[in-house]
C-alpha cells in the first residue's frame, strides 16, 4: 500500500509525549496538505523536534494518533516513514563523518543492498536528484571534509534519494551564512511546488518567506494555527513568547573611553594544528560592546580561549588594561578582572552535577566564601538566593543540580556568577545560542546594563541580528583574520554576510 501513496494530507491528532519530568508534547493536533509548507514555530523546548521525531517513528507517542489520507498509521521506525515518502533533515546533521557522501546515502537506500553495496546505482540516483533540484554534491568526498553548507545539501539530497515527497526540516538555516540561507529559501520555495514541507524555525523572516501555514507551539501545546500571509512577524513573535517582545537594542551614545583590550597580531593554533587565528587584531574600549561576527569555526573559539588563558598563543600580544596577559593561567586572567561566558554552557560554563549555589561561587571558593579552606555555607546560600532572585533563575531552590536546568536558566547562572563579580571586561561567546526569545531578551538587557556601567564587552556571535542590535562597533572574523572593523551604524546584513563569506572589497 505505501510507497506509491501520494500524501494528500498528514494529520496529527492529540499527540502527547512525556519524558521523565517533562511534558514535551501536550495534546498536539495539526495537519499538512499536498504541496503545502507548514512552518512549525516556537521557542526552544516547545516540543517541535520531539513532535517531528514522533512523525518519523524515532519516538513513540504516549497518546494520540497520526493519519495519512484519513487512514490511521503508526510508525515504529524511520523505515515506516520512508515507506510513505516522509523524510527528515535533522538540525544536527545525521551524516557519518568517516564515510563518503556516496556511502552515507547508500546507508539509507536499502534497495542498493545486495551481496555488496551497489554504489553505482546510488551514484546514479544522486545525479538524478542533483540535476532535478539543482543541488550539487561531490559523491566521493568524505563528510568530514565538507563545510556546514555542503553537509546540509548532502542531507537534502540524501532525504530526496530515499524517495521523500514529504520533507521535514528542523531549523535548516541555523548554521548557515546569510547568503547560504537565502539560497536555501529560494531552493525550498521551488521544491515546495512538488513536495510538502514541514519547516521548523524560530527565525520569523524565513517563516514569512517560505510558509503557507504556521503553527505555533508553546510549552508543548499548539497555541495558534493560521495562514502565514495574514500575520506580521511581530504578531507571530508575540504569539510565540506569549507577550509583546521588545527587542533590546543599543541606542545610547558611543563612548570615547580608552582602549582596554588590545589584541595585536595574535596567532593561535587550533586543536587540529593549523593556525586558527592568523595575525588577528582587535581593540575594545571601555564601556563598549564590540560584536565579532562570523560563521563559527573561523577562530572564534580559539580567540575566546586565548584571551582567557585556556589556550596557548603562538605569537602576538593580548594587552589588557596595559598589561600583557597572553599565556597567563586561566586563574591569572580571572584575577586581572576578566569575565567569561563560554561557548559550551553545559560543559565549560557550569559543573552540571553541582548545585546552583556551588556553581555561582565557583570562581570565589578560595576567596570571600571560605575561611581557613572551609566553605562558609550560610553566606554562600544567602548570596546564591539573592542572585537567584535578581537574575530570575527559574528553579525550585538553589540546591538543584545546575545541569538539570533549561539552557536559558543555565546561562543566567553563568551570567549571575560572572557579572556579580564586577568584572572589568566580559568575553561573551554565543550567549543566546539555542535560547528562546524571552531568555535572550533578558540576557541582552544584562549585557547592555553592564556596558552602560563602563565595562567593555567582546560579543562573539553568529546571529547578525544580535550583533547589530547590541554592538557599538562590529568586526568580522574569517579564517582567523579580522576582515574589517566598522561602526555599528554602517553595518547591514548584506555587508556583514559578504565579509563573513570571506569577500573583502578592500583586498
Amino acid at each position, binding site marked *: 500500500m505505501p510507497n506509491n501513496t501520494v500524501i494528500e494530507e498528514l494529520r496529527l491528532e492529540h499527540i502527547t509525549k512525556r519524558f521523565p519530568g517533562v511534558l514535551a508534547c501536550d495534546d498536539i493536533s495539526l495537519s499538512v496538505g499536498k504541496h503545502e509548507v507548514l512552518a512549525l514555530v516556537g521557542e526552544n523546548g516547545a516540543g517541535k523536534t520531539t513532535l517531528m521525531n514522533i512523525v518519523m517513528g524515532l519516538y513513540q507517542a504516549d497518546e494520540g494518533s497520526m493519519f495519512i489520507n484519513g487512514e490511521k498509521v503508526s510508525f515504529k521506525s524511520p523505515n515506516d516513514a520512508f515507506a510513505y515518502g516522509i523524510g527528515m533533515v535533522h538540525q544536527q546533521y*545525521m*551524516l557519518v563523518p568517516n564515510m563518503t557522501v556516496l556511502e552515507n546515502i547508500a*546507508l539509507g537506500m536499502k534497495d542498493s543492498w545486495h551481496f555488496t553495496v551497489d554504489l553505482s546505482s546510488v551514484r546514479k540516483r544522486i545525479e538524478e536528484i542533483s540535476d532535478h533540484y539543482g543541488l550539487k554534491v561531490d559523491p566521493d568526498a568524505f563528510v568530514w571534509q565538507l563545510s556546514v553548507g555542503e553537509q546540509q545539501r548532502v542531507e537534502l539530497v540524501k532525504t530526496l534519494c530515499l524517495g521523500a515527497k514529504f520533507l521535514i526540516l528542523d531549523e535548516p538555516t541555523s548554521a548557515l551564512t546569510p547568503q547560504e540561507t537565502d539560497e536555501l529559501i529560494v531552493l525550498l520555495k521551488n521544491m515546495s511546488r512538488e513536495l510538502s514541507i514541514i519547516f521548523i524555525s524560530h527565525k520569523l523572516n524565513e517563516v514569512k518567506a517560505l510558509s503557507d501555514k504556521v503553527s505555533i507551539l508553546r510549552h508543548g501545546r499548539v497555541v495558534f494555527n493560521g495562514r502565514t500571509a495574514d500575520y506580521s512577524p511581530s504578531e507571530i513573535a508575540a504569539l510565540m513568547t506569549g507577550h509583546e517582545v521588545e527587542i533590546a537594542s543599543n541606542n545610547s551614545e558611543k563612548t570615547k573611553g580608552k582602549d582596554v583590550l588590545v589584541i595585536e597580531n595574535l596567532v593561535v593554533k587550533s586543536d587540529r594544528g593549523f593556525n586558527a587565528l592568523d595575525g588577528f587584531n582587535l581593540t575594545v574600549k571601555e564601556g563598549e560592546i564590540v560584536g565579532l561576527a562570523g560563521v563559527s569555526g573561523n577562530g572564534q573559539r580559539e580567540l575566546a580561549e586565548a584571551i582567557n588563558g585556556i589556550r596557548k598563543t603562538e605569537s602576538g600580544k593580548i594587552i589588557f588594561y596595559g598589561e600583557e596577559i597572553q599565556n597567563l593561567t586561566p586563574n591569572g586572567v580571572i584575577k586581572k578582572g576578566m569575565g567569561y561566558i563560554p561557548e559550551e554552557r553545559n560543559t565549560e560554563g557550569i559543573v552540571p552535577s553541582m548545585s546552583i549555589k556551588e556553581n555561582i561561587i565557583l570562581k570565589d571558593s578560595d576567596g570571600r566564601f571560605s575561611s581557613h579552606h572551609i566553605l562558609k555555607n550560610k553566606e554562600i546560600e544567602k548570596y546564591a538566593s539573592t542572585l537567584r532572585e535578581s537574575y530570575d533563575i527559574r528553579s525550585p531552590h538553589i540546591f538543584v543540580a545546575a545541569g538539570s536546568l533549561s539552557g536559558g536558566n543555565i546561562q543566567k547562572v553563568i551570567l549571575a556568577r560572572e557579572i556579580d563579580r564586577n568584572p572589568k571586561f566580559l568575553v561573551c561567546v554565543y550567549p543566546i545560542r539555542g535560547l528562546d526569545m524571552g531568555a535572550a531578551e533578558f540576557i541582552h538587557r544584562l549585557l547592555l546594563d553592564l556596558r552602560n556601567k563602563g565595562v567593555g564587552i567582546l560579543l562573539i556571535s553568529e546571529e547578525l541580528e544580535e550583533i547589530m542590535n547590541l554592538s557599538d562597533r562590529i568586526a568580522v572574523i574569517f579564517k582567523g583574520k579580522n576582515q574589517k572593523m566598522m561602526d555599528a551604524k554602517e553595518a547591514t546584513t548584506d555587508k556583514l554576510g559578504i565579509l563573513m563569506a570571506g569577500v573583502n572589497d578592500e583586498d
Partner: protein
Amino acid sequence: MDLILNTLTLTIRFSVALMIASMGEMFNQKAGIFNLGCEGIMTMGAFLGLLIPFSYGGAGSVPFGINLLGLLSGAAAGALMGLLFGIIVITFRAPQGIAGIGLQMFGVGLAGTLFRSYIGGSQSITGITAYPIPVLSKIPVVGQILFTHNPIIYICYALVPLAWFIIYKTPWGMKVRAVGTHPRAADSLGINVSRVRYQSLALGGAMAGFAGAFLTLCQAKMFTAEIINGRGFIAVALVYFGQWHPVKIFLGALLFTFAQVLQTQIQIFVPSFQYYEFLTMLPYILVIVVLAFNKESNKLGPAALGKPFNREMRI
C-alpha cells in the same frame, strides 16, 4: 640461518591466534563497543577447544572432524559470551571498560573451574597436526616458511581479506561502521543500532573463542587457565595500533608475534645474548609511540567507541 628460518616459520604459525582475536575485536570496536573481555572469551574458547577432542580420544589422535568440532565449539562459546556482554553494555548500558574487565575475569575463572572439575590436571592432546603441502613445501626457504603448517592456518589467513571485504564492501559492514561512528545517524535511517551491535559482538566473540580454541588445538596442545597469557589484551591494543583497518591489524599481529618468537629463538640459538627481553618490549613501545603521535586516527576511528546509545536521551 636456522634462527631466521625458524623465527619466520613460527611467526606465521603463532600469529594466527592473535590475528583472529584482534580481527574479532576490530568488528566490536567498529560497531562502537570496546570489549576488554577478549582475554576471558579466548580462555573459554581454549577450554572448549580441548574439551570435545579430549573427551573423544584423550591424548591420542582423533579424527579431523572432531578437532574441527572443538574449534567450532570454541567459536560458539565465544559468540555466546559476546552476546552476554551485549546484554550488559547494550541493553543495560553498563560502562564498557568495567564490564569488559568483569567478562575477562569471568571467562578465565569459569574456564579454569570447568577444566578442574571435568578434566582435572593438565592433559595434553594430539590436536591438529601440521600438513606440509606436497609440492609447494619443497620450495627452498619460502616453502618451509609458508607451506608447512596445518590446514586451518591457511583458512585463518584468508580471513584478513574477507574481514576487509565485509567491512568495506557489504551492506552489513557499512552498517557496522555507521553505528560505531554516528549511531544517531544510523538510527535516523532506520538501522537498528542495538541489533547491529549485538551482531558484531557475536561475530567478534566467535572469532575470539575460535582463536582460543586454535591455541589449544594447534599450538599448545594442552590447556591451563593461563594459556592466553595476555594475548586478549594485546588483541585489543592491536586494534588501536592498526587503526581499525584489517590489513594494518594483520601486520601488527605479525610484528608482535615476530618479536615474541625472535626472543625465544635467540635464547635457543644464541644463549650468550643476555638482553633478549628488550626485543619483547619493542612492539609495546611501538604501540605507545604510534598511538601517541597519530592524530589522524581520530578522524578515521569509530567516534562513538565506548558510548552507549540511547535514542531518547536528549542532549
